[in-house]
């Protein structure tokens, strides 16, 4: 048996990150409470350097680690997005953590390990690698949700998240084992070629696909596997919600693409129907239930569910164009979600969470600039041009129209009208209602700059979406 030395260079960013994660872990272990500031600095350094390493080797790629690991443009784009978004997440969350006594090194250790998990998921070319990345990410997330030990809701949220997450992982593993039974391999490329060759037992194959789709549905938060999502988003400290709601969605999207497209792309008729169900239900339930929410975090959780439904439209179309559209959607969504939760953090102070919609009353008088930024984010989420969210919806609906699923497209556009209502409500509260307290609202400068960059990027992507759309298209064509 000959042993081939794997081409480490393809996994250089991950290896760097792993090394740094260990360094941060040791720092925190030795310095204890005092190490939090250093851990924060090191984490940012790690993320920036990782982003730089990914950027340096952008577009080069191939298989490594005996075909279990892949580096391609798809993974490069998503990893870059994940690292950049997490840089922003850490930036947003620091002051929130400090004011609530949660500013501990552990948060950063978990964040970096979790980011590593996401990157492994994105680059997985093998069911085991994928599962490894998924679990690394999820276990860190469970712990992060539970970080606020004294908070009842946070603990409850963590329990729910952990149990349902474990069930989802179980489903996924079961599906993987059935696919292994049908095709004789755990390697995505081998599975794809086995399916292409044909002669497989169709019943076993589709049985396995059912479980895989359930697992993916759980992780994305698609209806009917969405139950955990509002509670976790609501219960977790906002800084953790922010972390949960952004980069992991990109990773979960990558997982869906790796499994369904890279592995099972040739039997897309088997999973298309299931995804249509998930997608239509998510859009309907997410948008309709969001209307009834008075808590902004919960409302955004339901809006996440509906956005997942829209994103799945692109995946289920089964066309290159649709996958690119879904990718664009995932990136734009995480950017908008970053801004929206970032705004909640920005508004919150010690002892005041600012997560009720009424807390935003008269924001346009208290701080016109923040109100304008939130306006951009909300209109973008509602899918109104000229903002990035519009093109996200446009491209996925276009993919659906192009495969002649007009009825699904009609549901999608009607749901986006219903969705517009609750986003408009936020704008109404900010602009049309009188403020209850009149003192102007201030926030730390770095966060002001961050939220401005964030929202203005959404606007800029809305005015010139061509470049990002071209990148997404280049991945799949």
């Amino acid at each position, binding site marked *: 048996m000959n042993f081939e030395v794997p081409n480490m260079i393809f996994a250089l960013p991950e290896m760097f990150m792993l090394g740094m994660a260990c360094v941060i872990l040791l720092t925190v272990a030795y310095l204890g409470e005092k190490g939090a500031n250093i851990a924060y600095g090191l984490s940012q350094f790690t993320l920036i350097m990782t982003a730089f390493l990914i950027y340096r080797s952008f577009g080069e790629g191939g298989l490594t680690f005996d075909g279990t690991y892949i580096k391609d443009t798809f993974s490069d784009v998503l990893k870059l997005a994940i690292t950049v978004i997490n840089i922003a997440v850490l930036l947003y969350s620091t002051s929130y953590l400090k004011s609530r006594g949660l500013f501990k090194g552990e948060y950063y250790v978990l964040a970096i390990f979790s980011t590593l998990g996401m990157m492994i998921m994105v680059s997985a070319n093998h069911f085991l690698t994928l599962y490894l990345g998924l679990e690394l990410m999820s276990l860190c997330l469970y712990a992060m949700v539970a970080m606020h030990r004294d908070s009842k809701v946070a603990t409850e949220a963590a329990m729910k998240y952990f149990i349902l997450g474990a069930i989802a992982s179980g489903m996924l593993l079961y599906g993987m084992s059935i696919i292994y039974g049908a095709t004789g391999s755990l390697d995505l490329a081998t599975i794809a070629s086995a399916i292409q060759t044909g002669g497989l037992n169709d019943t076993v194959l589709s049985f396995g696909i059912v479980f895989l789709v359930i697992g993916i549905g759980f992780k994305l938060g698609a209806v009917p596997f969405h139950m955990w999502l509002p509670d976790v988003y609501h219960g977790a400290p906002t800084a953790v919600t922010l972390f949960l709601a952004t980069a992991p969605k990109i990773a979960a999207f990558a997982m869906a693409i790796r499994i369904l497209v890279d592995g099972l792309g040739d039997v897309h008729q088997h999973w298309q129907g299931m995804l249509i169900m998930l997608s239509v239900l998510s859009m309907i339930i997410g948008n309709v239930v969001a209307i009834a929410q008075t808590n902004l975090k919960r409302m955004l959780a339901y809006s996440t569910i509906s956005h997942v439904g829209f994103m799945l439209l692109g995946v289920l179309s089964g066309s290159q164009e649709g996958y690119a559209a879904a990718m664009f959607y995932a990136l734009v969504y995480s950017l908008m979600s970053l801004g929206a939760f970032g705004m909640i953090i920005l508004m919150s102070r010690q002892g005041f969470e600012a997560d009720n919609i009424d807390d935003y009353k008269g924001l346009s008088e208290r701080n016109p600039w923040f109100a304008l930024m939130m306006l951009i984010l909300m209109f973008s989420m509602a899918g109104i041009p*000229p903002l990035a969210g519009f093109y996200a919806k446009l491209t996925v609906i276009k993919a659906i129209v192009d495969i002649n699923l007009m009825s699904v497209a009609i549901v999608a556009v009607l749901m986006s009208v219903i969705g517009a209502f609750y986003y408009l409500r936020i704008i109404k509260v900010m602009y049309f209602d009188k403020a209850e307290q009149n003192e102007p609202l201030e926030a730390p400068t770095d966060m002001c700059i961050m939220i401005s960059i964030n929202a203005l990027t959404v606007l800029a992507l809305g005015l010139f979406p061509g470049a990002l759309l071209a990148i997404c298209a280049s991945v799949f064509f």
Partner: protein
Amino acid sequence: MFTDLPLLSLLIWLPVLGGIAVLVNGDKNGWARPLSLVISVVTLLLSLGLYIGFDNATYHMQFAEHASWISTFNINYSLGIDGFSMPLIILTTFSTVIVVVAGWEVIKDRVSQYMAAFLIMEGLMIAVFSSLDAILFYVFFEAMLIPLFLVIGIWGGPNRVYATIKFFLYTLFGSVFLLLALLYLHHVSGSFSILDFHQVSLTMQEQIYLFLAFLIAFAVKVPMWPVHTWLPDAHVEAPTGGSVILAAITLKIGGYGLIRFALPITPDASMALDWLVIGLSLTAIVYIGFVALAQSDLKKLIAYSSIAHMGFVTLGLFIIFRIFANSATDSGAILAVEGAMVQMISHGFIAAAMFLCVGVLYDRMHTREISAYGGVINTMPIFSGFAVFFAMANAGLPGTSGFVGEFMVILAAFQANFWYAFLAATTLILGAAYTLWMVKRVIFGEVANDNVAQLTDINRREFLMLSSLAIIVLAIGLWPAPLTEVMHASVEHLLTQVSQSKL
């Protein structure tokens, strides 16, 4: 001279960027008003360049500009105007100047935001009229909702939140179907160019669905009965400037959309379903006329009269198929479409003037109830002169622009069917009834109460804006040729497009 300049881009982006500049400048130094006025006047002057440089002889798109925007989907920044869009652009630039002047003293808080919203909206509306790419059109069509939503919601009346959300959701509901239709057309034709959509051949079933999608989108904007209910609410709650822009321009986008999309892209479905549009238009003209008669709120009355007048636009556009069936020449059809266009332009000026008159009264009395007024002529003679003039124009008095459009459409309707013409002509009675009755109750008679007795007549600023509108209404009424000439070639081209079956 004008063909070298990217005039359309200039017209779109000057007000948008100017609006942002006004917004950034803020309220502290008091520059918001003069700066907005300068920007809007410069835009108006530039837009006159379109009229001067316009070639009446051709139906081809003029002042065309083309640049790649989203290359992945072949979406282009593609602009151009023909005889339909050019007059509407000038209407837009003119109305914006009026709005800026109208808000000069009235708007006291957040002046810069108010002015910026209207300037940005001006740019977006010009862009809607000049976009030749379907997605570009849709982007501007939707983006326009944002400033108007804020204008009604921030500076509106007591029930403004309900009105503005209703307005937003209603129009969004209509326009998502437009988006689906445009995506489907791209699926069939492989292009997003509106002019390519005109060429694509479609089966009857496809055309019916597309036509219905267009109809929902644009009927909400026009608004046609029975999807008109957002308009009275929005008008009543909107500040004067918002009402002016709503009535003068956003409603016209509905009519423009039917001309640009529904008729040329789905001619066979338009013919098959013309009974639907004609029926709805006649309902609007007759039934809404009666509804207007029953109103006790000045703005609501004018809002309903707008719906009735816009009924002429849709009627004029869709009786052409009946005229084709009845006569060998298409002079009747030309009369109908040109009548619809003249009606749009004329209504833009008259409705704007009417809302301004209500605004003048409201600024002094802070009520729009007709019963609160009476004998205004005793205290405000000059204003009353204008008000009576515009009311006459609204009722379609010969010699004013209101007469020209309605007369052309009614005349054309005779060639389609006597009863269409008969029902349409009832507006001459109904329109006169509700407008003149309102004038009688508000303007004439004895001074009704102390508040009216203390009214002061219009100042120079108000005189300026009302008189400029009066001159235009009179000019179009007496000599409409300069307006009809520019659209003649385009109308003829539209009729050839419509008469060719796409099946």
